[in-house]
């Protein structure tokens, strides 16, 4: 029966100085991508027997990344660095995780929580978003008693801004609810820290020995032109992207809310595209006005993902590039249109400093304006709690996330630096580690910064082209169901098989975990036999071998981190100077030889 073990020899070894596959090095939480890809590739191909196996893979993923199901729908950071990019298309890692989560979510909902002994200090987490939850999850596993203070009426924070057509609600709710239940975190909803009632001081008195602030960036940024605010933002029909998406996620916006209306969305990021494609699905004739230009490669290129742009374009959303908003034209307190000068430059050496060509101005008319130009943290609370430095910026150590002003306080997530969901989760994990070190009075920075070298693409003759991802045709997408079709079992296995597993064995060990192989010792060189001919160098597809001139002459050396102990170099060595230690093949041959000699089958 298919069974993957993750203890003992099959456990992934903690990376010391090590090569990692580029996807894992790129992933902020270094998820075991290669291992789980290989495990998926070894799944049985009929659904019944595959299901329990998929759950085992899910459990393995969940153990290190409880958000993996959500990642499977929204994050594709690892795919950007995949070695296969240049040779046939990156491996569709996100869809592979989504495939696992489709089976895993129901299992998670009924999964029995871990019995953890909470014998350590109380820790308060301010903010129930990905950063806070991740920190709480990790600290609870370490035995801390964690309480999460969430300002709104539900956990999840900015994740709720992701539209349903990209992230199904059940996946998000089950994941959030599952995390709390699995580690038994105490959650206090509708409790905002920082406005009188709850202060950090109060938390300290309540017995919380460490506090992790991750409130995210709730306040949307207003529209500015040059130094000053664009007037007319208070007209009716003008709203801000965040709040709009927030309301949609709460179900407060009835379908075809914008039917017959012309909607203008300001902004060039992914959130702006979420807003536009949501508005389009609500019936609005939607256009995006972006400050940035069309060429993504240039410095002033539009930041939104290529897939988002393509999706929006397919769904009939007009995209107007390199346009700023100088004035909002209003008529009897209602928004009627925009005055949009051409933007000739977005950034200069000093940073964001747009410049416009007033001669080339475009007037756009529209009934609704949704401003989605980014969001910022709630500065007042931070000032009150004394967490900012002289220049009004957050005073926090970037490596340990510890506040410079108040030692027990740690800050992370979008609040600290706007980024992807997985970067916020990374902050959560870093903060958890720092909190434990702080509470255990250990050195805060030792061994924290670890740099991994990236394994380059292994050599082969044929590189396979990527599978084509199927989207529902644009005309049928005007709803909030998923528009992207996930992998079937066979497709998942096929794509997982395409993964080159280019990382070293010790950070994978998938084949050991399912008992396909029992040992992974790297190839060993018998230096008294090696003459330095270099045939093994060209036999190795992972460039794990190099020749080196030592005192006894030129000999070959194996880089234990890169070696896959596949045995290609062993069989190619003319002097028999390479071995894999005791090799099952030789033993099997001996028994076969004995068998052949005395087995019947003699000539009649």
């Amino acid at each position, binding site marked *: 029966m298919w069974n993957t073990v993750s203890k003992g020899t099959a456990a992934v070894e903690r990376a010391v100085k090590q090569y990692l596959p580029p996807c894992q090095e790129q992933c902020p939480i270094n998820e075991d991508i290669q291992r789980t890809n290989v495990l998926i590739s*070894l799944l049985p191909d009929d659904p019944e027997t595959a299901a329990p196996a998929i759950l085992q893979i899910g459990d393995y993923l969940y153990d290190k990344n409880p958000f993996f199901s959500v990642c499977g729908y929204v994050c594709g950071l690892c795919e950007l660095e995949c070695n296969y990019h240049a040779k046939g298309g990156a491996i569709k890692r996100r869809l592979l995780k989504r495939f696992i989560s489709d089976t895993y979510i129901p299992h998670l909902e009924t999964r029995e929580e871990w019995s953890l002994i909470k014998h350590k200090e109380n820790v308060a987490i301010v903010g129930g978003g990905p950063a806070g939850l991740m920190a709480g999850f990790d600290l609870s596993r370490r035995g801390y008693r964690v309480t999460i203070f969430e300002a709104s009426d539900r956990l999840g924070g900015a994740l709720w801004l992701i539209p349903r057509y990209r992230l199904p609600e059940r996946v998000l709710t089950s994941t959030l609810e599952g995390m709390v239940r699995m580690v038994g975190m105490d959650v206090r909803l509708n409790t905002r820290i920082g406005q009188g009632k709850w202060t950090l001081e109060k938390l300290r008195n309540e017995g919380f020995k460490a506090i992790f602030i991750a409130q995210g960036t709730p306040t949307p940024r207003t529209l500015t032109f040059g130094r000053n605010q664009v007037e007319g933002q208070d007209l009716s029909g003008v709203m801000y992207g965040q709040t709009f998406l927030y309301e949609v996620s709460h179900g407060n916006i009835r379908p075809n809310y914008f039917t017959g209306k012309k909607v203008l969305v300001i902004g060039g990021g992914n959130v702006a595209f979420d807003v536009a494609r949501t508005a389009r699905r609500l019936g609005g004739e939607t256009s995006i006005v972006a400050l940035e230009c069309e060429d993504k490669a240039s410095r002033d290129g539009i930041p939104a993902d290529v897939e988002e742009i393509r999706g929006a374009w397919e769904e009939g959303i007009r995209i107007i590039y390199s346009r700023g908003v100088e004035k909002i034209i209003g008529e009897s307190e209602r928004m009627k249109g925009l005055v949009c000068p051409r933007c000739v430059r977005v950034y200069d050496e000093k940073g964001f400093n747009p410049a416009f060509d007033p001669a080339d101005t475009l007037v756009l008319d529209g009934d609704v304006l949704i401003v989605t130009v980014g969001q910022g943290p709630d500065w007042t609370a931070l000032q009150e709690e004394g967490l900012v430095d002289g220049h009004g910026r957050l005073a926090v150590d970037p490596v340990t996330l510890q506040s410079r002003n108040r030692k027990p306080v740690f800050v992370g997530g979008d609040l600290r630096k706007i980024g992807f969901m997985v970067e916020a989760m990374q902050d959560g994990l870093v903060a958890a580690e720092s909190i434990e070190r702080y509470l255990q009075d250990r050195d805060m920075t030792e061994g924290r910064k670890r740099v991994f070298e990236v394994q380059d693409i292994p050599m082969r003759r044929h590189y396979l082209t990527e599978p084509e991802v199927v989207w529902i045709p644009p005309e049928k997408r005007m709803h909030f169901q998923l528009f992207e079709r996930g992998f079937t079992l066979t497709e998942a296995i096929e794509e997982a098989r395409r993964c080159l597993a280019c990382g070293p064995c010790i950070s994978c060990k998938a084949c050991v975990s399912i008992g396909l192989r029992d040992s992974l010792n790297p190839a060993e060189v018998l230096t008294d036999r090696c003459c330095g001919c270099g045939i093994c160098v060209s036999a190795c597809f992972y460039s794990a071998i190099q020749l080196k001139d030592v005192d006894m002459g030129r000999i070959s050396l194996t880089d234990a981190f890169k070696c896959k102990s596949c045995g290609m170099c062993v069989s190619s060595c003319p002097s028999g100077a390479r071995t894999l230690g005791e090799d099952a093949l030789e033993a099997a041959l001996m028994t076969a030889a004995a068998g052949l000699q005395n087995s019947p089958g003699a000539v009649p």
Partner: protein
Amino acid sequence: MGYEPKLVCFSCKFGWGYLRDLDGPKEASVFLIPVECSGKLDAIHLLKVFKEGADGVLILACEEGHCHFQEGNFRALKMLYLLEEVLWAHGIQKERVRIAFSLDPEGRGIPDRIVQMKNSLAALGPLDRALL
């Protein structure tokens, strides 16, 4: 027909029957040797097997482009092409060594591939060992 050809079958663990423990029913004259990768096979492994009494060798390798170790299957193919003339010089017809490129996780196809190979070996008759 008394002649029962003796067959050794090397199968790649990453492509064939890893989902079923392979040491199924033991046929006296068939020896199944799973290996991590067909590319790991050395010419001497095959020659030794013929020398010890095998009448044929079947290598079950992964499908083109699907080798877990990149090109082990292609390595095995190249080795077999080189081996052909050496085998023929010793009276071993090249039909006695066959390599199949496919994926069969359950190993459902292995038994009848073995039967198929044994039939073709039976057709060739016992191996003339004059030069072995």
